């Protein structure tokens, strides 16, 4: 198995995930992510191609519902939201 040990671009990953990583955590997270990548590399050794047969475990298909609207009690969800302004959810602005 081809192992990846070199430095990964953690900065880019952090940017995509919109998180900040402290210097202290950087080493530990890099190690974890390398583990994950190498685990997937192991899976990639299986020559299964990209057949959709492997996408789903069940043999089910054409599971759908009719176009009938039914509203949920939205306030029950809003009540769980920690940061709101009026009925809007509020989050830090992401540029």
């Amino acid at each position: 198995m081809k192992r990846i040990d070199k430095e990964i671009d953690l900065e880019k990953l952090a940017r995509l995930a919109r998180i900040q990583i402290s210097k202290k955590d950087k080493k530990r997270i890099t190690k974890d992510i390398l583990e994950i990548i190498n685990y997937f590399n192991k899976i990639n050794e299986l020559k299964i191609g990209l057949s959709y047969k492997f996408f789903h475990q069940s043999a089910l298909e054409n599971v759908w519902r009719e176009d009938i609207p039914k509203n949920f009690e939205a306030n029950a969800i809003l009540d769980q939201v920690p940061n709101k302004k009026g009925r809007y959810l509020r989050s830090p602005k992401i540029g």
Partner: protein
Amino acid sequence: MRELEVKTLSDMSIKIGLEVHCQLTKLKSKLFCPCSSDYRDKEPNTNICPICMGLPGTLPTLNKEALFYALKVCLALNSEPNKRILFFRKNYYYPDLPKNFQITQYDRGGGVPFSSGGVLKLSSGKEIRIRRMNLEEDPAKIFYEGSITSSRYSLIDYNRAGIALLEIVTEPDMSNPKEAREFLERLKGLLEHLEVSEPDLEGAMRCDANISLMDGTRVEIKNISSFKEVEKALNFEIARQKALISKGIKVKRETRHWDEARRITVSLREKEEEEDYRYFPEPDLVPIAINEEMVKQIILTLPELPEKREKRYVKELGLSETLAKVIAYDRDLMKLFEDSLKYCNLPKKIGSWIVNDILAYLNRKNLTLKDLNLDANKLAKLAEYSEEYKVSDKKLKELLNELISGKKNFLEVLKTLKKEELVQKDEVLRIVDSVIKSNSKALEDYRKNKKVLDYFMGKVMEISKGKIDAKEVRNLLKEKIEEIIK
């Protein structure tokens, strides 16, 4: 040297491709959950549920009608639906996605688009090829406290999150911004005809464009809100790229944002690359198998498509190609036209009124047909009366315009028509009498040669400046003269 460059620049080939996102607004519920899709004018975050909010433990289920609507559009555009529909997760972290991924479709990594190929014809006959279509969910709407630049927070309304979107991607077949605009107008007309969408609703039809000059670097323009804006954004981008090329600067491959207020495109600082989206098959949605039976069933529901309708108008109703084209591709005009023909059999007259008078008026005033209080029945009646009453075309146009603009109501127009007819008849009688009286010699000649009637005709028409009906004048003249010489 400089001049030579400028000349080649003006001739340079332009390639424009479009990526249109159209909400299937005729659906009653969202794409993967039963929340109502009627979100416009609703309080923020009222049409939300654990599924579209991406709460743990929830499962999305496909709206069957959405699948059928998408198939309808496929078939109308001659796009080949894939036999097996799969959904993928497109991952990116942005507050408009409650799940941090969008359920969409993907044509790589083992996926297939909803459909491939297809074509939409422009009025010139040019065919714009469709590359693919995908069914996906709309993200939420984001607002800012204060302005987008100064605000520290995003305010999010998830009512739109999960609304069914049809993504239609074209090949770069359009060679100028006008063609791009016409493509969108035709596509809009088609979606309306199919009754799957109301693209005029705010935000219901949005579009990104990519453009390259002289087979050079492709630049993508995002955030274009309307057809007029597409043309403006593309024109700006062409000018910008031409200026760069003429200065010998290479056009950068990038995504730009159309700033509607400033009328310019601006570079987006950072944008994910394709691989950053980490597409993978959506494990929560099972594949959908499209079978022949389904397709047949949908073909039966397809209405007459504009292209076919246009041909029928020319062949069976005798409309000119210009009139047929304009009416057949505009759903509102088409409806007024067809409805009017239910009450009268005067397609040419009605067709001409709709395009030359009604549409011209709407364009002048920047209105839509819905803004006018016109109904097909009245239009048909007016057409019939106008055939019956001998009123000059000029007067009739005047009355029609007064009806369109609402200056006169239908009854007033009718009264005027009748009055006009009486005035006209009096006028004709008066002229006929005076012409006969002042041409006693010709009257004598008439006894020998009936062709002298033409001489009288000429005189009458000359005095009335051709404003009256010739056939009627002839009959009246003959009647009067015969009476005198008896």
